[in-house]
């Protein structure tokens, strides 16, 4: 029956997820059976007692015994299901004491993760495999919801309060994090990537912001250049929520053709878009704001590792 589970549920990323799948399938078969107890008699009666002129129907007003049976049996089933669900839920609701704590701040429309060592990422969550990880969440604006389908957990994130959720990932690799509480225009783009990795990789990640970047800088794969790495940063670090690649104006200047251009700043000065300017704009964005744009960009100081900055510069350079 594994195939049926896979048909209906996303991949299971933790032991807890497997338990939920088991429960889901259990309910599926149970409800399927109950469904048949309704539908089979219904269609049998329709055929068996189809209209015949002159057929006289018996006058049966009720049958107490039968009615008690079909009240009590569902009641017992329901009580059993409640306790089954409660058992699974207790596991979800109570985080183990030894869990590593990651702070999540949700905001329209991105996720910020902060690790115990203070390093931060945006829309990019890394956790070590087979470790309990607890997330302490709050929101900056409206209600969001931290949903990791592969882990079968979700919880609302409420402004002005902390909420918690935890899991123990067992499946190495990438998983989707989505926002499951409607939060406006960018609701459906409020994704983050969850990477479950082994301890060594996780330690390295904390040091350098990941291991993946190495593949882009060793020149082995023609499809993995520093500029491609920059594109990955563009998509995962939140750049794309303000900068477009096709020349259309968004909240920030489009990156298309910006490299090497003389831009007019909001104080009337002109500046050449080169490596120094791009670097400064990431670290101290409000220093030189291009005319016609609000100074709304936050500093990415400490958020971007050196390799990521290099990648981004290469990427912008490539957008001629």
């Amino acid at each position, binding site marked *: 029956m594994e195939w049926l589970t896979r048909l209906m549920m996303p991949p299971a990323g933790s032991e807890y997820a497997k338990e939920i799948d088991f429960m889901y399938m259990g309910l599926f078969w149970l409800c399927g059976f109950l469904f048949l107890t309704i539908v089979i008699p219904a269609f049998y009666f329709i055929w068996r007692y189809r209209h015949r002129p002159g057929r006289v129907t018996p006058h049966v007003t009720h049958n107490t015994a039968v009615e008690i049976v079909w009240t009590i049996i569902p009641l017992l089933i329901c009580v059993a299901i409640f306790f089954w669900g409660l058992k699974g839920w207790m596991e979800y609701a109570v985080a183990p004491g030894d869990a590593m704590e990651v702070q999540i*701040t949700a*905001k*329209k*429309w*991105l996720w*910020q993760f902060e690790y115990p060592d203070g390093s931060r990422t*945006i829309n990019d969550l890394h956790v070590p495999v087979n470790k309990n990880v607890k997330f302490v969440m*709050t929101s*900056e*604006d409206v209600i969001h919801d931290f949903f990791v389908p592969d882990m079968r957990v979700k919880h609302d994130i409420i*402004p*002005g*309060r*902390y*909420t918690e959720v935890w899991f123990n990932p067992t499946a190495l690799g990438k998983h989707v994090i989505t926002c499951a509480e409607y939060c406006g225009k960018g609701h459906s783009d409020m994704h983050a990537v969850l990477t479950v990795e082994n301890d060594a990789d996780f330690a390295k990640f904390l040091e350098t912001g990941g291991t993946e970047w190495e593949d882009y800088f060793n020149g082995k794969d023609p499809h993995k250049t520093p500029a491609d790495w920059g594109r990955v940063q563009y998509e995962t670090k*939140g750049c794309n*929520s*303000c900068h477009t690649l096709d020349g259309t104006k968004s*909240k*920030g200047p489009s990156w298309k053709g910006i490299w090497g251009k003389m831009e007019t700043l909001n104080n009337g000065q002109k500046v050449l878009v080169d490596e120094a300017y791009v670097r400064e704009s990431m670290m101290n964005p409000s220093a030189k704001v291009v005319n016609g744009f*609000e100074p*709304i*960009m*936050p*500093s990415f100081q400490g958020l971007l590792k050196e390799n990521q900055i290099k990648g981004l510069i290469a990427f912008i350079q490539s957008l001629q």
Partner: protein
Amino acid sequence: MSHPAEPTAIHDAAHEHEHGGTGVYAKTLIALLILTAITVAAASFDFGQGNVVIALFIATIKASLVVLFFMHLRWDKPVNAIIAMAGFLFLGIFILFCLLDFDARNNYLPSNLHAVADVPLAPGTAPAGEVLHTNPAAAAEGGEKK
């Protein structure tokens, strides 16, 4: 009820006269005034949480007097009493289940924490010009420090 009863509105009205009456209403009013005095007096002592309980208990007695005598529910048809009780019953359900939630919840951020939240977050997410999480009163006072 195979034979029709006789009551008419007039008859019924006359019938109702047997209930109530100026004397009963006056006694009710006096009881209500005395209870008001008691509840005011009780409030000047400090019973801790008990004050709320006493005040609401006395209020409920007073409300019952109004409903039973002034609103005639004591003599009225049962259906009206059921409707009245249903109103209060469902209000009770509402209160009870809300408290069930509230009493067990204590994970608030300190109020106005976000006024100075120092999380540098990205861009463009708050409507331009709107400062999130500032205290309106503080804004009115021009940020005057207390």
